[in-house]
C-alpha cells in the first residue's frame, strides 16, 4: 500500500469528482444560480432511511418575508423540492415553512424550526436549509403499532447479530487471557476498510501502475470476494497482534491493566491512521448499496440485510459447533474456564490464545463488512460500536462466548425497540444505562457464573 491517502492517482480522482458531482446534485454544494437580482431559494429533501437516497419533497408551502414580518411572497415547492422567490435588494429574509403541508411521514428534524433566516447579498441567490426527517424523526408520533415493533425487532436482531460477531471475539479473548481489548472496535473498522479497499482497488490497485490490470488484481473486485479477503486479513491481523504484541507482553509478565492501557493506545493510533488514510467522510461499498426493501409479512427488509443476517446466523452457528464439537473448541472453552487446569492437562494455552485472537480478528472483520454494508463505511465505526459490544458482553457475561451473543442480541433489539419511546439520538444511551444496571443487579451477566467477578 502506498503511504498516501486511499484514493490513488487515477481512481481516487474519479471518485472525488463523482462525489463532488453527487454533492452538487444533492444541493449540498449550493451552486450559484444564474439569476438577475436577489432571490432566496431552498430545496426540501429528506434522506430515505432504507436506501439513504435524498428524496425531494414537493407541494410544500413556503412563504418569504422580511425580518419585520412583511410577507413578500409565497409558493409551493416543485417536483425537485425546490422553490425560488425573488426579493428586492440585499438584506435578511425569513423563510417560513408550513409544516401542515408536509407529506405524510415527513417532518421537520427540529419541529420548532419552521423558519430559516438568510442574508441575501447584492445580485445573489441565497439558499436556506430546512432539515427534514422521514419516519420516526419528529415527536409527532402516532401510537405504537405492531408493525413498528416487529420492524424494529428485526432491525435490532440484525444489529445484534453484527455486534455479536465482534463480541464473541472480545469475550473469548477476555476469557482466555483476562484482557479487555479496547482495540477490538478498530478490528471491526479494519475489516470494513480492507473490504472497501479491495472492493474499489482490487488486490494490487493501490499501486498506480497496476490499477489498469483486470480484476481481481486491479480495478476492484466484487464485494463478496473483497469480504473474504477482509476476513482473511482480519484473521491474520488478530494472529499478528497476539504474536507481536500481546504474547511477548504475557511472557514478560506485564500486568493486565498495563496491557489494557496498551490496547487503548493502539486503538487511538489505529483509529487516526484510518482517518488519515481513509478520510473523515462516510462512504459506501461499490456493490449492493442501493436496494429497495422487500416486504415479508409486516416487516420490510432489504435483500442485503436479509442475506447478511442469514450469513451471520450461519457463521455464529458454525462458531458454536466449533466451540462445542471440535477438540480445538473444547480447548478454547477449557482455557477460558480455568487456565491453569487446562495447562496442566496438556493443552497448549499459548496456541489456543493465538487461535482465539485469530478467530476474533476474522469475526470482527466480517462484522465490520456487514455493518459497512448495512450502514456506511466510516473510520469511526469501531469506536461507535465498541461501547455497544461492551454492553452486550457484560450483559451476557464477560468471558463466555454464548453470553456475548445473547447479550449482543438483547442490546441490538433493545436499542432499536427503545426508539419507540425515546428520541433516536439517545438510543445508545439506553444500552449503556442497561450496562450499568446489569452490574448492580447481576454483575456476572446472564450466562456468567458468580465466581468470575469479585
Amino acid at each position, binding site marked *: 500500500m502506498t503511504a498516501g491517502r486511499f484514493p490513488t492517482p487515477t481512481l481516487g480522482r474519479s471518485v472525488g469528482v463523482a462525489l463532488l458531482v453527487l454533492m452538487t446534485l444533492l444541493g449540498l454544494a449550493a451552486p450559484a444560480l444564474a439569476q438577475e437580482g436577489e432571490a432566496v431559494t431552498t430545496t426540501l429533501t429528506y434522506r430515505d432511511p432504507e436506501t439513504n437516497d435524498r428524496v425531494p419533497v414537493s407541494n410544500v408551502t413556503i412563504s418569504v418575508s422580511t425580518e419585520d414580518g412583511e410577507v413578500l411572497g409565497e409558493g409551493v415547492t416543485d417536483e425537485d423540492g425546490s422553490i425560488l422567490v425573488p426579493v428586492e435588494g440585499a438584506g435578511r429574509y425569513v423563510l417560513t415553512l408550513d409544516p401542515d403541508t408536509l407529506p405524510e411521514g415527513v417532518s421537520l428534524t427540529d419541529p420548532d424550526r419552521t423558519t430559516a433566516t438568510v442574508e441575501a447579498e447584492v445580485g445573489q441567490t441565497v439558499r436556506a436549509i430546512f432539515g427534514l426527517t422521514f419516519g420516526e424523526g419528529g415527536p409527532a408520533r402516532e401510537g405504537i403499532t405492531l408493525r413498528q415493533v416487529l420492524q424494529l425487532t428485526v432491525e435490532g436482531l440484525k444489529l445484534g447479530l453484527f455486534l455479536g460477531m465482534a463480541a464473541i471475539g472480545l469475550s473469548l479473548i477476555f476469557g482466555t487471557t483476562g484482557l479487555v481489548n479496547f482495540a477490538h472496535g478498530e478490528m471491526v473498522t479494519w475489516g470494513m476498510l480492507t473490504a472497501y479497499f479491495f472492493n474499489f482497488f482490487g488486490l494490487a490497485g493501490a499501486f498506480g501502475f497496476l490499477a489498469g490490470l483486470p480484476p481481481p488484481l486491479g480495478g476492484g473486485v466484487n464485494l463478496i470476494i473483497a469480504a473474504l479477503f477482509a476476513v482473511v486479513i482480519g484473521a491474520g491481523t488478530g494472529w499478528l497482534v497476539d504474536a507481536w504484541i500481546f504474547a511477548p507482553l504475557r511472557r514478560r509478565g*506485564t500486568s493486565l*491493566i498495563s496491557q489494557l492501557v496498551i490496547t487503548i*493506545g493502539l486503538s487511538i493510533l489505529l483509529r487516526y491512521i484510518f482517518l488519515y488514510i481513509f478520510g473523515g467522510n462516510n462512504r459506501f461499498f461499490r456493490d449492493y448499496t442501493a436496494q429497495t426493501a422487500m416486504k415479508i409479512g409486516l416487516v420490510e427488509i432489504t435483500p442485503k440485510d436479509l442475506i447478511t443476517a442469514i450469513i451471520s446466523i450461519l457463521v455464529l452457528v458454525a462458531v458454536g459447533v466449533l466451540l462445542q464439537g471440535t477438540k480445538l473448541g473444547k480447548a478454547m472453552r477449557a482455557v477460558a474456564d480455568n487456565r491453569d487446569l487446562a495447562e496442566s492437562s496438556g493443552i497448549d494455552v499459548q496456541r489456543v490464545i493465538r487461535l482465539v485472537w485469530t478467530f476474533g480478528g476474522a469475526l470482527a472483520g466480517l462484522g465490520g463488512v456487514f455493518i459497512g454494508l448495512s450502514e456506511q463505511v466510516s473510520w469511526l465505526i469501531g469506536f461507535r460500536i465498541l*461501547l455497544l459490544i*461492551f454492553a452486550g458482553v457484560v450483559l451476557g457475561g464477560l468471558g463466555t462466548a454464548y453470553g456475548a451473543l445473547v447479550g449482543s442480541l438483547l442490546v441490538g433489539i433493545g436499542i432499536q425497540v427503545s426508539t419507540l419511546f425515546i428520541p433516536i*439520538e439517545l438510543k445508545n444511551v439506553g444500552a*449503556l444505562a442497561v450496562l450499568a444496571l446489569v452490574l448492580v443487579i447481576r454483575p456476572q451477566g446472564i450466562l456468567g457464573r458468580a465466581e468470575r*467477578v469479585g
Partner: protein
Amino acid sequence: MPVIAAIDWGLVLDQTIQAGLGVDAVVFALAAIGLNVHFGYSGLLNFGQVGFMAMGAYGVGLGITLWNLNPYLSLLVGVGFAIVLALLLGVPTLRLRADYLAIVTIAAAEIIRIIARSTAMRPITRGAEGLNEFAGDFYALNPFNPSISYGIGPLQYRGNFFFIILVGWIITLLTVLFVWQLMRSPWGRVVKAIREDEDAARALGKNAYWYKMQALIIGGVIGGVAGMVQVIAKATVQPDTFVPPITFFIWTVLILGGVGKTFSPVVGSIIFWGLLAFTENMIRQLVFEGFIPSTIMDANQVGQVRFMLVGIGLAMLMIFRPQGIFGSREEMALDDR
C-alpha cells in the same frame, strides 16, 4: 540541509513554551492529578475522567445561565455535579473487578456527552450549541487589563488569559499540596494499602468499598475543577469538547509523568503539551513550506498526527517505561483484582 534552514525554530520554540504552560497544560495537569488519585493511589481504572470534567463544566455553566447564581456558588454546583457522578459510578462498580469500572466509566462519559448535546436537553444545556453567556462573571474578577499582554520572554498572554492561567496554576499547585498531604495521612495509607491488597486491608477492618468511593469522589472533583478551568478559559461549554480521546490524553499525561507521584502529573502535562506543540508546529511548517508533499499530508491531516502520536506514545510508554519519568516500578506493580 535546506530543511533545517527553512523551519522557523524560534516560532516553534515559542509555541512549544506557550503550549507547555498554557491553558491546556493547566487543565490536563489538574485532570491528571485527579486521575492519579484514582489510578495511581487507589488503583481505580477510571476511563471516564472527561465525564467528570464535563460535569464540572456544566455545573458551573448551568449555575450561572440556568440558576443565575453568583460565580462562587456556581463553582460549588460544578463540584456537586462531580460528586454526584462519582456516586453514580461508584455504587455499581466499586465492588467488582477493576476492568468493570473501566467499561462503566467510559460509557458514562459518553452518556453525559450524548445527553448534554441532545435536542431533548436543549432548553437546559443548549444542545450541541453549548452554553455561552457565563464566563463574563469570572472575567469581571480579572484585575489585569484585557488589552495588554503580560508575561516574560516568549510567554505572552493577553490579560484575561493571563488571569485564567495564573489562577489555574495556583489552583494546580494547591491541589498538588493537598494531594501530597492527603496521601501522607492515615487515609492515604489505607487507600494505598487497598490498592496493594484489598483483601488484606479488609481483613484489618477497613471498609475498602467506602475508601474507594471517597477516592473516586476526590479524584472526580479535581477532574471537575479541571473542566471548570477549561470552560471558563474558553468562555464556552461545548459538549463535543468532552470526547473520550480527552481521557486518553489525560492517561498519557499521567503515565508520562509517572503514576503515583504527587508532582508528576504537572510535569507530565507540561512535557506532553510542549512535545505535542513542538511536533505539530514543526510538521505544520514542513507541510506549509512544501517539504512534505501534500499528497502525503495536507493541512487537515497534521491535526490527526497528534492523536496518532498520543496513541503510540501511550502504548510505547506502557510497554517500555510504565513508571514514566518520575514514577517507581513498585507503584506501577498493579494487577487486577
